[in-house]
């Protein structure tokens, strides 16, 4: 069964000609056709283009070329611009938008011979924690289709979990890779801010957004991140730092690794969730790591800080959608202001409008100091707490989410309750830190995630810590019923 194989195993079979990329691509396209109607994870299928890319990859393989991702299919989150293919960002605003160029990560993966099968559903403009704000309807969790997959990379997470592709791309502004990865039982990596190019990734909150990967293991994620990461002159916040060989570093010994248990994450934590994290820590202890408790006193401010900073940046970024140059335009506008107001009012969904208005409010005269400036100061306090913690420990560990996946519709009426889903993930975004979520067990039959957070540019250490946890456990290898 081709969809059960790891990226490494697929690359091996492609290299020794046991399979071709075209066969592999057909296999996954057939799975999407059969299984996606029950999930709504994929909103654009690019079958013809995929088969052409696969044939090209087969020619490169036949010529003796080898690559970790050469000939291997993927699905891109629909936030990444793809030349000639609709790039909707989950919004009515961009329902008719055919991107005229590729995002840098799309270019890089194409060059590596990756085969795009299609585009994944997502919360509108990546604003949501349940994938219910999409213009294309909610995504269902493959573990229980009455439950959400998390968000905003919910389509990517569900597609990876249901084995609709060997891996998917995602973006993480406040937890949008790690939270859905946790709720669907896959491994999600949010790299350091600046590690992966944001060029061609539709902007939500520019000081927080970062692209990453959702895969079925840390080893698979390492192979993908290797290709995605690196300096890009087209992104002014891209960092010029060499990319380590992540796959080669996966087995670096964990002996003596200092793991900090985040005290603030355990306040009021569900006892079953806490038990899973304790079990994971026992695994790390058995691998030779030392654990100690650390405190980040300002961490509880993360959610209110984020819900000032992110909407402020969103209100500015989304001002580009004006109904003039691209995107949705309302019918028969009576003047230019009416054109702007109705194109935006009709083109954006409720959550996006709510965040634009929150951002407009906190940036407006009379409120700027009390909200935006205050939040920027709180952001520094939180970041300084992380810096102090990393003087004492190599990695921080805790749960990815407070609860397992919740029912579709359960939290849509109360934005603040929805925002609290991101309580454990937002800190890393505010401080620009890399984080990873790896499956660590189940509650009521639904997967849960262990979150590891490291200092800036510690992706190699995070991936190796997650990889060695996955060699000692098999949570990441569990497959939802019906998708085996």
């Amino acid at each position, binding site marked *: 069964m081709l969809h059960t194989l790891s990226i490494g195993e697929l690359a091996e079979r492609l290299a020794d000609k046991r399979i071709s990329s075209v066969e592999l691509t057909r296999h996954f396209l057939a799975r999407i056709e059969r299984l996606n109607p029950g999930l709504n994870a994929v909103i654009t299928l690019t079958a013809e283009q995929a088969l052409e890319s696969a044939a090209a990859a087969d020619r490169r393989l036949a010529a003796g070329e080898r690559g970790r991702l050469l000939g291997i299919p993927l699905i891109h989150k629909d936030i990444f611009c793809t030349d000639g293919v609709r790039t909707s960002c989950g919004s009515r605003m961009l329902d008719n938008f*055919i991107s*005229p160029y590729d995002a840098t990560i799309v270019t890089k993966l194409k060059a590596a011979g990756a085969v795009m099968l299609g585009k994944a559903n997502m919360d509108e403009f990546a604003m949501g924690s349940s994938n219910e704000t999409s213009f294309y309807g909610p995504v269902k969790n493959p573990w229980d289709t009455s439950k959400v997959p998390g968000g905003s990379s919910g389509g990517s997470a569900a597609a990876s979990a249901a084995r609709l592709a060997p891996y998917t791309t995602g973006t993480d502004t406040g937890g949008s890779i790690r939270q859905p990865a946790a709720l669907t039982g896959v491994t999600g990596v949010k790299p350091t*801010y*600046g590690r992966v190019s944001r060029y061609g990734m539709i902007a939500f909150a520019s*000081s927080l957004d970062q692209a990453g990967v959702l895969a079925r293991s840390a080893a698979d994620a390492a192979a993908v991140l290797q290709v995605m990461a690196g300096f890009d*002159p087209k992104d*002014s*916040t891209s*960092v010029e730092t060499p990319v380590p060989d992540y796959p080669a570093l996966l087995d670096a010994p964990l002996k003596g690794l200092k793991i900090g248990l985040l005290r603030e994450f355990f306040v009021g934590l569900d006892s079953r969730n806490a038990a899973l994290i304790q079990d994971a820590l026992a695994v790390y202890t058995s691998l030779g790591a030392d654990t100690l408790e650390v405190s980040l006193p*300002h961490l509880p*401010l993360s*959610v*209110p*800080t984020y*819900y*000032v900073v992110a909407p402020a940046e969103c*209100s500015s970024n989304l*001002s580009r959608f*004006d109904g*003039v*140059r*691209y*995107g949705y*335009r309302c019918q028969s506008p009576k*003047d*230019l202001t009416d*054109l*702007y*107001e*109705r194109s*935006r*009012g*009709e083109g954006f969904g*409720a959550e996006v*409008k*709510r965040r*634009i*208005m*929150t951002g*407009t*409010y*906190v940036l*407006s005269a009379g409120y700027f100091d*009390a*909200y935006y*400036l*205050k939040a*920027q*100061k*709180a*952001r*520094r*306090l939180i*970041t300084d707490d992380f810096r102090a913690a990393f003087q004492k420990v190599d990695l921080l560990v805790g749960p990815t989410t407070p609860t397992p996946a919740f029912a579709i519709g359960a939290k849509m009426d109360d*934005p*603040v309750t929805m925002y609290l889903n991101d309580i454990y993930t937002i800190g890393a*975004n505010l*401080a*620009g830190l890399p984080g990873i979520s790896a499956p660590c067990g189940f509650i009521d039959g639904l997967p849960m995630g262990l979150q590891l957070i490291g200092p*800036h540019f510690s992706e190699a250490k995070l991936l190796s810590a997650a990889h060695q946890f996955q060699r000692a456990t098999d949570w990441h290898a569990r497959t939802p019923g019906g998708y085996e």
Partner: protein
Amino acid sequence: MSLTRQDVEKIARLARLSITDQEMPVYVTSLSSIVDFVDELARVETGNVEPMAHPLDGLHQRMRPDVVSESDHHEKYQSNAPQVQAGLYVVPRVIE
């Protein structure tokens, strides 16, 4: 309610968003609850803390050589526009 209907109408106008009469009460309620929630920040002592705008302190904006790096793609770009005439974007009349 920390925000009134008039407040939200003003915010919507600043944000250039048309909000229907049916939608308005929902936004008044939800935006008020968000504002109440983030008001928690007011209780934090932030005295001399330097505001943080960017997660990677010390990162400076790069300069690039002042050379042409792009060719003219206006036709391709304008193929996404709602209304174009003679290479120009068309909007309702703004000057009488």
